[in-house]
């Protein structure tokens, strides 16, 4: 099993290649969208690179649960409701959603995902 440092290094390499950012920009606290400029298609690129780099399978919606974010059951007026937040926490135990919870606007969700969240996710898979 790879160490936390090894996971971080491989995740960083994947993000550098997928997003064209510099090594030192990829810090654990950096947000993928806000700080590193990831766009929606980049997530597919990142998923492919993580799958190859760690020899894992990442099912669609596991790293980025778009089905919850677009569900009428969980979203009203552009915000995730309490049930939706619970579901997100259940599906994404690797992510720190505390900041997002303060103002759970769907559009802000992608901007809250950090490099550390991604490392936590990978650690749960390897």
């Amino acid at each position, binding site marked *: 099993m790879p160490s936390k440092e090894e996971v971080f290094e491989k995740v960083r390499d994947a993000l550098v290649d997928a997003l064209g950012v510099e090594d030192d920009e990829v810090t654990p606290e950096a947000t993928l969208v806000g700080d590193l400029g990831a766009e929606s*298609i980049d997530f*597919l*690129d990142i998923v*492919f690179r993580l799958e190859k780099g760690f020899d894992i399978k990442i099912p669609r919606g596991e790293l980025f649960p778009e089905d919850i974010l677009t569900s009428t059951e969980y979203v009203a007026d552009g915000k995730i409701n309490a049930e939706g937040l619970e579901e997100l926490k259940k599906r994404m135990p690797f992510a720190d959603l505390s900041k997002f919870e303060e103002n759970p606007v769907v559009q802000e969700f992608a901007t809250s995902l950090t490099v550390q969240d991604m490392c936590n996710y990978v650690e749960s898979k390897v």
Partner: protein
Amino acid sequence: MRWFWIDRFTEMVSGQKATAIKTVSLSEEHLHDHFLGIPTMPNSLILEGMAQTAGMLVSEYNDFRERVILAKVPKLIYHNRAVPGDTLIYRATLEAIEESGARATVTSHVGDCLQAEAEILFAHIDRETAHRPLFRSSDFGDLLRSLQLFNVGQKADGSKLTFPEHIE
């Protein structure tokens, strides 16, 4: 003008790899507009040819039922110019494919010389939000026939690829 940047397929193994060729001719208009007096195949059109080779490989995987579009080119390196008389050989390898898209690596060679190399990401456009097909079925069928894809196409087990019944 037709947006065909490959001439024909010479190999297609379903879900694995495809090879197509593009012969560069001095009579092509666009060669003369790029650098005055130095006829050169524009690199952007070489990328398009590489993407068409890989795109067909991706599209064939799902029997041409998905709407496949070029989404991103994470890596692209040109090593040499392509000039009239060259035959560019585009070799695409399907690295990964899933519900929402695919990733391919592609090289362009002139003879044994590596001319360009790329990584290309394709997206499958969401069927629920898509309101019309990318091509008319008969046009797409003509394209597949023109590219001679089914003359060389094989399934992964080596058996012959057959022309899809749902395409005219």
